């Protein structure tokens, strides 16, 4: 049971703490109540003190005066009376009881006539105190002060009354009882009336203070609610706006500061909406334009293409210059077509219109098909292509068309830059990830260029002529294809040692990409990792210089056409007769 209560208390405490943090209103009201309570306590305490002081001071002065008068009257009567014997003295004291007991007026609570303890007088007088009073009431310091000093002394005492006590004041002085020597005479003045007056004043102060604090809290709560509510509404509207609902506005009432806030907010929202809509329209328009241009170019390109082919067929009948022109025309038309296809594919990615059409694929078959396709080109450049694939099927959920396009790009690229040295293609997989590594030992590329090979139309050396086929978009499209699968494309390279591209694909597009089952070639790793922290490179498996390609968005839409298959074909066929000068790297 206590455990449950404790839990509830803790939960309530946590809830309160959360409300304190979250709600401006709760905080303002809480602070107001706390601060005003403190103020009321200080002011009230001061007031009660001052009133009490005044009250008691007046009563004490009066008590002193009455006590002095009473004592003096007693002394005078004693002096005038003839009390030669102890018996007469005792009789005199007994006769004066009533008079002594009435000293102090309304507040008279009695008197005490006490023998000074060290008195050497031979006669004692007994029974000289009022009923209900004992010498124990008086504190020792008071009695000592009365004995030691000739003046009046006073001290508060607790007077027994019924079950409890009431406050009272004892005023004492010495009297000379002739034969009996020095006696202490105390008058006790009841202060309960003053005390009850003070109590009443304090009660009024406390109750009034509490009411004032509550009133303040309520007023502040109402005021802050008035101020906070429009702010909260604006915050909620802003949150909905940032979630994409650009139509959000807040209600504006009145013409005060908060209404100005609301109006400004609405103006800002409208302006933002206009800007965003305008930009979205522009972007759509631009993508639409690229797509339309690509499509509109297709019909004349088809005519040119066919005309070129007819001329090319008939080049045997033409004079040498015209014959070569026909060859060039056809080759460049091929390139133009590949470029157009890639441009269209790229615009599809940019528009977010690329959708993955994945089904289980055995990547060994794709690798075999790509290598087979590359064989004629490789043979023409005397580049051996060595393939390593596992004996068991390597299946992944992927779109065969896209993966094959990536692999074609990598293999043709490697063959193109292999400079007659072997190209190695390796396929491996583990439980989560499939990796294809394409490695050449050709001219390679500088590690600092590695991250740029995926840029659109990027060339290692802009001064070199664009002589080879390829659109310059191949690797950019491959990157998008890899990202669309939830995978990535990476590269390492060293000048003179070659380059290695690695495609990593998750087994299913939804799955997380695991660590690569294939390491990058150790000899291509740069000696020191790049220091530039802004470079989008990430070290994988302790291999510096591995570049992770920044991801791009891919979202559902229509599916693409042949894309860079045409480009690959173009590299494979059209570019061959034209290759003469040294090729630009990674075009």
């Amino acid at each position, binding site marked *: 049971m206590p455990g449950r209560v404790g839990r509830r208390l803790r939960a309530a405490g946590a809830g309160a703490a959360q409300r304190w943090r979250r709600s401006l209103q709760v905080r303002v009201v809480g602070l107001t109540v706390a601060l005003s309570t403190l103020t009321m306590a200080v002011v009230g305490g001061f007031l009660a003190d001052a009133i009490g002081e005044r009250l008691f001071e007046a009563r004490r002065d009066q008590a002193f005066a009455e006590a002095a008068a009473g004592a003096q009257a007693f002394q005078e009567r004693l002096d005038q009376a003839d009390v030669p014997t102890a018996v007469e003295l005792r009789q005199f004291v007994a006769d004066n009881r009533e008079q002594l007991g009435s000293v102090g007026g309304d507040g008279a609570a009695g008197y005490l006539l006490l023998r000074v303890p060290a008195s050497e007088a031979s006669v004692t007088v007994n029974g000289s105190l009022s009923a209900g009073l004992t010498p124990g009431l008086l504190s020792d310091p008071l009695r000592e002060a009365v004995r030691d000093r000739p003046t009046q002394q006073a001290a508060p005492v607790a007077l027994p009354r019924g079950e409890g006590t009431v406050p009272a004041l004892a005023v004492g002085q010495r009297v000379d009882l002739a034969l009996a020597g020095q006696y202490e005479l105390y008058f006790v003045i009841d202060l309960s009336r003053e005390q009850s007056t003070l109590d009443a004043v304090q009660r009024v102060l406390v109750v009034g203070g509490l009411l004032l604090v509550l009133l303040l809290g309520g007023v502040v709560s109402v005021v802050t609610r008035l101020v906070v509510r429009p702010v909260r509404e604006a915050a909620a509207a802003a949150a909905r706006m940032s979630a994409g609902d650009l139509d959000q506005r807040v209600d504006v009432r009145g013409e005060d500061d908060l209404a100005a806030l609301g109006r400004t907010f609405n103006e800002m929202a409208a302006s933002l909406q206009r800007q965003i809509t305008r930009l979205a329209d522009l972007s759509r328009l631009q993508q639409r334009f690229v797509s339309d241009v690509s499509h*509109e170019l297709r019909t004349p390109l088809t005519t040119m293409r066919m005309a070129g082919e*007819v001329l090319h067929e008939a080049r045997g009948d033409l004079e040498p210059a015209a014959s070569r022109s026909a060859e060039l025309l056809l080759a460049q038309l091929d390139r133009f077509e590949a470029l*157009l296809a890639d441009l269209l594919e790229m615009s599809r990615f940019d528009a977010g219109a690329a959708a993955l059409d994945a089904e289980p694929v055995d990547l060994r078959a794709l690798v075999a098909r790509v290598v087979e396709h590359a064989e004629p080109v490789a043979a023409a450049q005397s580049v051996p292509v060595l393939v390593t694939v596992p004996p068991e099927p390597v299946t992944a959920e992927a779109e065969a068309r896209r993966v094959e396009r990536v692999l074609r790009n990598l293999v043709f690229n490697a063959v193109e830059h292999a400079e007659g040295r072997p190209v190695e293609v390796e396929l491996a997989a583990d439980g989560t990830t499939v990796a294809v590594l394409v490695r050449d030992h050709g001219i390679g590329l500088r590690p600092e260029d590695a991250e740029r090979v995926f840029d659109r139309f990027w060339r290692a050396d802009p001064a070199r002529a664009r002589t080879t086929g390829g659109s310059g978009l191949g690797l950019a499209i491959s990157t998008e294809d890899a990202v669309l699968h939830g995978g990535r494309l990476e590269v390492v390279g060293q000048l003179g040692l070659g380059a290695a591209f690695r495609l990593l694909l998750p087994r299913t597009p939804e799955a997380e990409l695991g660590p690569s089952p294939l390491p990058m070639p150790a000899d291509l790793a740069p000696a020191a990792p790049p220091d530039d922290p802004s470079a989008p490179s990430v070290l994988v498996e302790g291999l510096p210089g591995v570049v992770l390609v920044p991801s791009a968005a891919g979202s559902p839409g229509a599916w693409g056409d042949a894309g860079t298959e045409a480009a690959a074909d173009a590299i494979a066929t059209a570019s061959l007769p034209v290759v003469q000068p040294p090729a630009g790297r990674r075009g």
Partner: protein
Amino acid sequence: MTPRVLVVDDDTALAEMIGIVLRGEGITPSFCADGAGALAAFREAKPDLVLLDLMLPGVDGIEVCRRIRAESDVPIVMLTARSDTSDVVAGLESGADDYVPKPFKPKELVARVRARLRRREDEVPETLRAGDLVIDVAGHAVSRGEQQIALTPLEFDLLAALARKPWQVFTREVLLEQVWGYRHQADTRLVNVHVQRLRSKIEHDPEHPEVVLTVRGVGYRAGAVKGDDAAAPSAPQGGAGTVDAG
């Protein structure tokens, strides 16, 4: 007798170029530059094949395709600049047999045209069965009991290819090669659309096909032979490299 092809394309340069290429292949072209006149040109020319641009001024290619198909089974090959799904599928569903995306190579176009013009002159008289259908290959006729079912030549070829090897599951790629004559990778949507059209003509309930069955993740095969004389003609043995349906 040389085959005749009607080219319906509003781009006169392209149409003329296509004409040059077709004449070089021994095919006689005729031309029509707009959709509105296409049907009249078709009736006049009586072509063996129509090359139809999908985007035409006036009446668009899809409507032209539908009108031609309404009165003739002549093969229709679409020319299209947009190869997005919706356009291609709309074209195929309106009755086109095949399509060639622009820009195409002359050889590609000629191959597509030849594949559609090809008649099976070497066909031996042969009767195939699939489900409760009887297929007369030489007569290009399909019947269910007494009832004749009209199919386009392409749909007939598709059904015959499946029925000839009822034990084999055909992948879409194999069907593309055997029926459409593609050698390289091509658009498997061709197969999907035509299988649907075929089913709508021959199945009792196209939602639950019994003649052309889908084998999930692989392709299609012919349904088991049904009917009173199920013992009838065993199909001739097929070629090598087939996938066993078992």
